[in-house]
């Protein structure tokens, strides 16, 4: 691995990464289909199942309405594991990739 690629490398939300962290109390039960919001295709809708960890990230997300049961739309992702763009209602916001990894969602299929 070159120094340059090491400089840009970050975890891509592997299964082990997801399992290490527990969901905050009071969340919906993740089913087998649940994935990190990073795995949702751009433009896709999803229902939030749980926000892992209960630190400041979870509080910030809760203040924006990213709570279990909320429906969000993934607007886009940036290159090199940059921020993920989400919309909830008419609010658009960007969250860091690592924070997005901790938002577990169920994909909502288009009808």
């Amino acid at each position, binding site marked *: 691995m070159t120094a340059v690629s090491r400089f840009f490398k970050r975890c891509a939300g592997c299964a082990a990464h997801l399992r290490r962290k527990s969901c905050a109390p*009071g969340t919906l039960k993740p089913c087998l289909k649940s994935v990190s919001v990073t795995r949702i295709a751009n433009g896709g809708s999803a229902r939030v199942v749980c926000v892992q960890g209960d630190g400041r990230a979870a509080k910030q997300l809760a203040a924006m*309405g990213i709570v279990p049961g909320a429906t969000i739309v993934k607007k*886009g992702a940036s290159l090199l594991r940059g*921020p993920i*763009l989400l919309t909830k*209602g008419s*609010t658009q916001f*960007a969250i860091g990739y*690592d924070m997005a990894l901790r938002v577990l969602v169920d994909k909502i299929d288009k009808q």
Partner: protein
Amino acid sequence: MGLTKKVAIVGNPNVGKSLVFSRLTGVGVISANYPGTTVDTKTGKLVHAGEEFELVDVPGIYSLEALSRADEAAIHIIDTCDIVVNIIDATNLERNLNLTLGLLAKAKPMVVCLNLWDDTAHKGISIDLAAIEEILGVPVVAASALRGDGIPRLVDKLHSARPGRALCKPADTWAHIGAIVEKVQKLSHRHHTALEMLADFTIHPAGGLVFAALVLAAVFAIVRVMGESLASRVCEPLFSHLYNPFILHLCQHIPLTFVKELLVGRGADPLASFGILSTGVYIATVLVFPYFVSFYLLFGLLEDVGYLPRIAVVLDTLFHRLGLHGYSSIPVMLGLGCKVPAFLATRVLTTKREKILTMSLILMSAPCLPQSAMIISLGMRYGTSVVVAVFAILFLLAIGTNVILNKVTKGVTPELFMEIPAYRLPSLRLMARKLWIRIVEYFAEVFPMIAVGVLVINILDALSVIRFVTNALDKPLSLLLGLPREIAPVLILGFLRKDVSIALLAPFGLSAGQFVIACVFMVLYIPCIASFFTLIKELGALAAFRVMAIVFGSAVAIGALLNGAFSLGKMWGFSV
């Protein structure tokens, strides 16, 4: 009554609290279209129907949970005020109601103001005011602070502010909000507007980067062209044909030579005479002011349109490698203008580590605008490549230092979490007012500083302190940096005003290499007096001195390195 009631203007970030505040009180505040513009509280008075209100413009918060220093300050004000005015972005009812429900539970007399009401129509949103007033149980007013609509009604309602009550348990807040929104708000379908399509493009992973590069390049090109033509067509002629003859004529009759020399200096060249009213005024009005106006005109436009948060998202990936997240790019960009507001803007950052890293980046990545203006106008005598070299060296040094700092300091890199506001067409009147506030602040700060600087240098000169310092710095300057010893007094002046100090390099006849070293060193070695005290205030003395020591160390190291490289180059026959 006679008792002044304290009114806190509270709301989510970027809902127009500062605009409402300034409409109510007439106090000029800087507003912009990105979350976190207000980090300091401002107060103003309002007298209406025999009652006196003291209004406080509170920094924006998303919830009543303190996650940063700005949040803590805001929550403290809410707890100590008599009336809460909750400003809500009417186009984002759902998200804003979270804070509103929290505020209602505090049982303080409260008024709710649905701001940006004019935007709801073309966004296809209709809100039932009577219904929402009934649900919340406190007065609700629709307003547009940008146009001034609804503000008188808001003032009337201050008298009938009623205490709210908790509507639901904190755990059920979002479910309850969903029910409220369902009841009071109707959405109609509409197509993407041109602004929204632009919004999507400017935040696109690849398109956004290209756009950001184009915007930055355009800003610099326009600032240069506008600044130069303002300087040469307007400011310079005004100075040399009107102001200078007038002031020389006035001072002719002063009998004391010392006072006269202090005021207008010796000789006719405004840059070399070194008087408060000649050199001081010339630097402030002809050399710096044109660039200042051009930069803040464009920057104000970018702020009000809402582009800055998008740059922050686009730059997040890069900033992550520096131990920061993209939001830090906003203070860094502010720092291109002046370091003081840039340092203040770091208050929204949550950890001390983040603040230290951002501040070192602000200090090192680029000079402030007056300095840049001086580097460009003096450096162009040597050619474009010299100017580019100065900025490139500073930029690379800043990145390098931050990568190292990020490696050696403990702590985790925080995650970006930022709301992206919709693009808004800026109001020309507001932009003009903002520019005016900045110009007034510039002159209020710049003139006293220059006057003091010139005075101090003259006094030091008279007391032969300068000769002493010059002798003391002689060896280090020539050996380490390869600069002439006469530069020493300029270095002392640099603490007072760094732009002035760079302007004073002109008479030394430096070679191109020496000029690059002198500029890089003088941009870095110490912050100017205003940013020095802001840094201490924001970080605490210990951390501030640590940051300054790191920056000073890098300045000496890069200066010596460049000097070594240039000397080697000279030995091998390159001309530098």
